[in-house]
């Protein structure tokens, strides 16, 4: 019976090509607009570290006070004094401090020009906490942190540029005038959004080339390659002076496995801030935060407003297309009231009429889905003109999006057809037969 209804549906669609084309286009455009904006939204709103996002927390301590903080919220990073205090207290199972560094690989071998190498100064726990995958070697140890070692972990990409992709663990190279030895080479690792550094990036930067020992970077008096934010009067004239200032530039992360650990760490943070108040360093009551990965992404507004607004507008657009389709299906079905009357009089049940018209609508949905898919494919590849390149790059037409496009198109069209089909099924056969 289904095949027969499908045949009837196709025949009926061919009967008014203009009306059919209009419905197919409405569904196609509506689905495509929704899918294109959704593909971008999906890319920017995902969980970058699904297995551990609830165990990783970034502590914040207000070192600026109620008059200079961010409308009551503490700064989004820590000043050197607070960062080191948290590190020294070692109240979490694992913890790291990090800040972006800009380095250059000095010329050597057959390269006569220096090479850019951007990355992060981090501590040993960084690699285990964030589950960084390694191709060769591994991260460094806590002893290396304490020894302020010149160990580095490099990306697969930098390893390819410098060492032709071979296992370079143990090899040495010159970064900005100092020698470093490679302890590990990562596989491709660039979680997006880059939850661990939302202070200096918007979350969608290129993969870092290099990770170096935090203490080593401090020894070299390396200023952050990212953001730096200060309050009040800035008067430092030396590295030491800078470290003592209220400027924030270091992002801390801690790993806490249970609710009890989280509560304990929160208590520790509050106590720390209260101690600072007692010591006279803070002239205000403790104001601390402890946000996990997803809360941090939300707080930092990682999803650009443009992405949310365009998704909302596209869904509204789709809704209008559906309302339009309801109207057109109604017109199309009711135009055939006479035919329905004949079929009902010949014994077709309401249910059969109902099914027949829903199947006809589903074929419209299917055609709309095909058009929508083509438009989505074109749109996703051309999305670069609508969003910033680093975000547009993330939008992909994968199998799940293809499936979703069809499912949404067909389900939405069938839903839209419920009312018109119901009206069709309730046509009075007697009246129709009489009037024609």
């Amino acid at each position, binding site marked *: 019976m289904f095949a027969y209804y499908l045949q009837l549906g196709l025949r009926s669609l061919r009967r008014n090509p203009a009306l059919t084309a209009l419905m197919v286009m409405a569904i196609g455009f509506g689905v495509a607009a929704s899918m294109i904006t959704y593909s971008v939204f999906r890319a920017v709103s995902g969980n970058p570290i699904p297995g551990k996002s609830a165990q990783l927390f970034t502590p914040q301590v207000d070192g600026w006070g109620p008059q200079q903080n961010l409308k009551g919220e503490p700064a989004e990073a820590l000043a050197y004094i607070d960062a080191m205090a948290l590190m020294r207290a070692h109240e979490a199972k694992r913890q790291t401090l990090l800040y972006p560094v800009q380095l250059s690989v000095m010329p050597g071998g057959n390269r006569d*020009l*220096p090479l850019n190498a951007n990355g992060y100064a981090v501590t040993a726990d960084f690699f285990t906490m964030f589950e960084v995958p390694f191709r060769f070697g591994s991260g460094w140890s806590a002893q290396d942190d304490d020894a302020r070692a010149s160990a580095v972990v490099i990306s697969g990409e930098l390893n390819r540029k410098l060492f032709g992709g071979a296992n370079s663990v143990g090899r040495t190279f010159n970064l900005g005038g100092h020698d470093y030895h490679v302890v590990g080479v990562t596989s491709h690792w660039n979680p997006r959004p880059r939850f661990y550094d939302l202070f200096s990036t918007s979350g969608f930067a290129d993969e870092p080339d290099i990770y170096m020992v935090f203490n080593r970077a401090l020894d*070299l008096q*390396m200023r952050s390659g990212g953001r730096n934010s200060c309050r009040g009067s800035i*008067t430092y004239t030396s590295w030491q002076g800078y470290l003592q200032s209220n400027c924030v530039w270091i992002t801390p992360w801690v790993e806490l496995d249970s609710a009890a650990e989280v509560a304990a760490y929160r208590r520790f943070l509050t106590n720390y801030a209260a101690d600072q108040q007692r010591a006279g360093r803070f002239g205000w009551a403790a104001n601390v935060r402890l946000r996990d990965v997803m809360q941090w992404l939300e707080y930092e507004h990682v999803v650009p*407003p443009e992405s949310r607004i365009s998704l909302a507008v*596209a869904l*509204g657009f789709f809704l209008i297309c559906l309302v339009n389709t309801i109207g057109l299906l109604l017109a199309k079905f009711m135009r055939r009231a006479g035919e329905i009357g004949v079929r009902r009089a010949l014994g077709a049940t309401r249910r059969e009429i109902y099914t027949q018209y829903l199947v006809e609508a589903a074929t419209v949905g299917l055609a709309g889905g095909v058009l929508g898919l083509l438009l989505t494919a074109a749109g996703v590849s051309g999305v670069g003109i609508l969003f910033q390149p680093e975000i547009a790059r993330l939008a992909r037409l994968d199998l799940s999006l293809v499936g979703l496009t069809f499912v949404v198109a067909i389900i939405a069209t069938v839903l839209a057809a419920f009312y018109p089909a119901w009206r069709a099924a309730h046509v009075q056969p007697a009246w129709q037969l009489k009037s024609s």
Partner: protein
Amino acid sequence: MNFQVRPILTALRQHKAGTLLIALQIALTLAIVCNALFIIHQRLGNLSASSGVDEANVFVITNMWADMGQSTSQVDAQVRADLIALRQLPAVRDATPASGYPLRGGGWDNFVTMTPEQVKPTTDAAVYTGDEHFIDTLGLNLVAGRNFRPDEVMVMGTQEAVTPPTVIVSKVLADRLFPDGDALGKSFYAMGATPTTIVGIVDPLHRQGVDSWSNGYAGQALIWPLRADDSRGVFYIVRARPGQLADAMREAPKALYAQNRLRIIDSKDGIQDYATIRHKVYDRDRGMAILMGIISVVLLAITAAGIVGLTSFWVGQRRKQIGVRRALGARQRDILAYFLTENFLISVSGTVLGIVLGFAFNLWTVTRFAMDRMSLAYVGAGVLVLVLLGQAATLAPALRASRVSPVEATRSV
């Protein structure tokens, strides 16, 4: 012409579903189109904001130092040598060192206070640094006071915070701090222990960033006479002689590498002209405007097509009634007026709901994303567009209806 509203309303009651669908479609379309118009107008406004820079002739070199262990005096010597080399190029008019540039997309900004004790800032200003060539290189318009003298230019090392005693400010900042228009010679504090005195005023000068958080500080900028000799790197802003931008952009990196090869000028975006800089910084705004434009146009087309479709159906359904009316003496234009009035009534009721929905959407963007409130003008424009669209879409089916012959009344039954 005689507008018969009562019979139209009676007839509409027979087509509740269709009427409701058209009204709903017009309402939703209005809600989206007026918001889209508002967003487009706002974003295009951003796009055309003046930077104050002679954009046709200026480009920026992002120069990173490879050897990060250099002392401030070593860096300073290299920067001075680089600048001499750049200024000597035949295609170059002028060049300046800098720590940022207008429309860079973000960068250094300082809070401004009127006294050193003041804790809550008066306002915020983008901070530019450069030597006495900064104003000429960018092509800024000096509207009052004077340029920096060479002896006023100070050196700032990587680990130093320096507040020069003199400053040139944008007119917007000058007016914000000294509304009486007597800013010249006055002092303020910009996160330093010592005051800085205004010696010149330029107009306009855009900030480095275009993010919405800085909208309240738009156009507020200050220039300090500083060579920021950061061991990490420096920006060189270069102004080519008219028509020689391409030559200057080709020659400049060669001249720099001839000075010293231990530097990194990225092959991809190490040298950018202002067309590129402007294009990049307004990516979001342009993309948003294009997307809203496409959606509006397609939406209006689909809504119009939907109205044509439903009205045609109604005309088809009522051919007999139309024939009867014509037989009873109605003129063609009475029939035409009937359908146009019918559509007008539906459109107007739809737009009432649409206005509510449109403002609701705007309110969402205001509370959620701190966007601006939409003015009534956009809603008015949207209503006008939709009512006209509705009338235009009805015209063809209505004309067909008006040509129904009175003979139809006599056919069948």
